[in-house]
């Protein structure tokens, strides 16, 4: 799927990050030290991590990722929590709605399991709520593993069979997850 806008958005984000970082660098510039090596030829390495075309820098590789990714049990759990915490409401069954699709290979904030985990915990500025302290961390990993599986990023034998949407089979939510249910509506709009 061609995606001029999201590509543009990413470029803009990268440009912004570059501008910001450039600003930081200026703050800490040491005027009295030796001149920095200028360019790859000088030292064989780039003077900074900045490179055109890069996306936002994601979280570092997390050892927990390996526990969840490609694990059929955790992916299955993640699928239930995905509906339970109403990700479905904004992302549908992965095709997207208010929020972007999660089943395709286009990512605004990165598609590694760590980056997806970060999107869920941190929230994202254009309307992705932060679920920090609302979803236990192991469940966030499970949801992230499920999202990874949507796009066929996991081993076939770990991926859940096709979604329940509009099949007359048992809805996945009929098996209630045990952990904390989101609080009942106490605080009403107005």
């Amino acid at each position, binding site marked *: 799927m061609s995606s001029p806008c999201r590509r543009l958005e990413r470029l803009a984000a990268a440009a912004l990050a570059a501008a910001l970082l450039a600003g930081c660098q200026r703050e800490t510039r040491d005027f009295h030290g030796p001149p920095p090596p200028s360019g790859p030829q000088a030292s064989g390495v780039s003077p900074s991590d900045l490179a055109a075309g890069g996306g936002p820098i994601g979280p570092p590789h997390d050892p927990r990722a390996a526990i969840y990714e490609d694990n059929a049990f955790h992916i299955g759990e993640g699928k239930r929590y995905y509906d339970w915490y109403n990700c479905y409401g904004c992302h549908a069954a992965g*095709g997207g709605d208010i929020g972007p699709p999660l089943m395709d290979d286009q990512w605004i904030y990165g598609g590694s399991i760590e980056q997806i985990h970060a999107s869920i915990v941190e929230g994202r500025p254009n309307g992705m709520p932060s679920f920090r302290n609302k979803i236990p961390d192991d469940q966030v990993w499970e949801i992230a593993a499920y999202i990874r599986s949507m796009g066929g990023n996991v081993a076939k034998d770990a991926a859940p069979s096709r979604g329940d949407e509009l099949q007359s089979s048992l809805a996945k939510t009929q098996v209630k997850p045990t952990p904390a249910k989101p609080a009942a509506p106490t605080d009403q709009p107005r």
Partner: protein
Amino acid sequence: MDRRVWPAGRTASAFALVVLALAACSRNAPPPGPAKPPAATPTGAVAPAAASPDDDGQWTMPAKDYANTRYSGLDQINTGNVKGLQVAFTVSTETLKGQESAVLAVGDTLYFVTPYPNNLYAIDLEKPGGAVKWKYQPKPDAAAQGEACCQPINRGPVYSNGVIYYNTIDAWTHAVDAKTGQLKWKVKVGDFHKGETTNMAPIVVKDHVIVGNSGAEFGVRGWIAALNAGDGSLAWRAYSTGPDKDVLIDPAVFKPFYPQYKGTDLGVSHWRGEQWKIGGGTVWGWISYDPELDLIFHGTSNPAPWNHEARPGDNNWTEGIFARDPETGKAHWFYQYSPHGLWDHSSVNENIILDLPWQGRTRHVVVHPERNGYIYVIDRTSGELLAADPFMKVTASLGVDMKTGKLIDNPEKRPTEGKVVREVCPNSPGAKDWNPSAFSKQTGLLYVPHNNLCMDWETKPVSYLAGTPYIGVNPRFYPADPGKGGEFMAWDPVARKKVWTIDEKWPVWSGAVATAGGLVFYGNLEGWFKAVDARTGQVLWQFKTASGIVGQPTTWRGPDGRQYVSVLSGIGGWAGAMVSSQLDPRDATAAKGFGNMSADLKKESAIGGMLYVFALPKA
């Protein structure tokens, strides 16, 4: 009398005179005939002059006039010469989601609002090429984009007495000086963190700017409110659910026609427990105003959540229409199109103020093409139902009981959890969604852009999580007839039948405008902007804009004396989100069901955001 009360511009004094004369009459007296009766039409339907004064060549409110006719008296562009229509100029909106705003023309300036970030543009008509005079940037909170069910669109600004009023997606109302683009005031009208957004076009009645909220898909409690035009302070707010004091139901004033609306606090008792507090009934559609009766008419949206099993009862006062006093907000009457709404058939579509010959006498009515598939004719003085006729294939219900006024749900289609109900027609956007019809004072016909869609519907458990969608349904949409997802039709409101129709492959999501040149204009999702012979339905001219059209066409006289036609092109909104939000059609439930039918649309339309202005070549 406060001068701010009346729409400014060349009509102001004439209009004020009419209204002054009318103000002298008591509300209970039969409506006096306006000074100059409207010209007769072939069908006999007329728009009363008080709510639809003669044309002054401007377009100061999205619906054109209080009657919501969207009719222009201009006839320079007509059936004879429209084939020569060409682009006069274009302006980029610099945004790429659904462009649903009307384009206003006031004096020498055009005004329109973009989707998020909801910038307000003023285009200078004295300069060539659509020069931007100023751009007001409200900078709404970016997070509010996630709280808009169907893209952070905007349905347009309204002009009154030197000021432009409009809403931003983060639930603020802004008043901007029409000349300078300077902010006069802004007020927070809702809390978007709980899903409450604002995208409707306000209407100005006397000294009040009337606004309503969106967000029934988030379990928002609906309301309509009047702000004082001078400073934005709250004059009144009427909720669509809850106790009578919140709904502004005062038994001394509230005289509904049907007995089922009489009683105390039905907005509480017709719900289970406290469900009414998160029960929807938002007011995001069109508001019309009859200056003779001094009443505004507005619809209320679907109840929340969509899963009806979570909210037993009639769910008052959702999916209905209120007549209210614009001064106090007090309700005069109410009628419910869909008690205990099952299908998200939000009832906020336009209520066009017309006078119709009816069984030997004249009835003062509103005509309302409703999402549930029927065109309603309701006596606007009393709330009595006069007609409810289907305008597409309807399977969701079996008709309307004309004695009780009640919709008869089809028991075979009643959803229950864990079961998929198939072939529900119309689907949830309905036989017609928000995009407004036009009434021609020349032909006496209504021109209705609409859908032709059915759906499969599966209810599932739902729990309320503030600020996230509160729906509980997996829907899947498809055309009611192969290859025909929409229609643009002419409807005779007196004979109550279709006169002609144009089949469209996709749901028609643009508004309509009718002119004294014998023309109607509308656009489709592929991007074709069409001029149609109002009498025959023959397409006389069409132009392919760069993106799909989901906006509201308008027509006006430029400072050079020539007639222009304007429309925003830019696909989006619910029907266009698959394209401009770049959603994945492999998921049938993407965009709340449009994923199922939109793979081709992604190829046949394209993302964009552009104002197009058309004119005949200079003589």
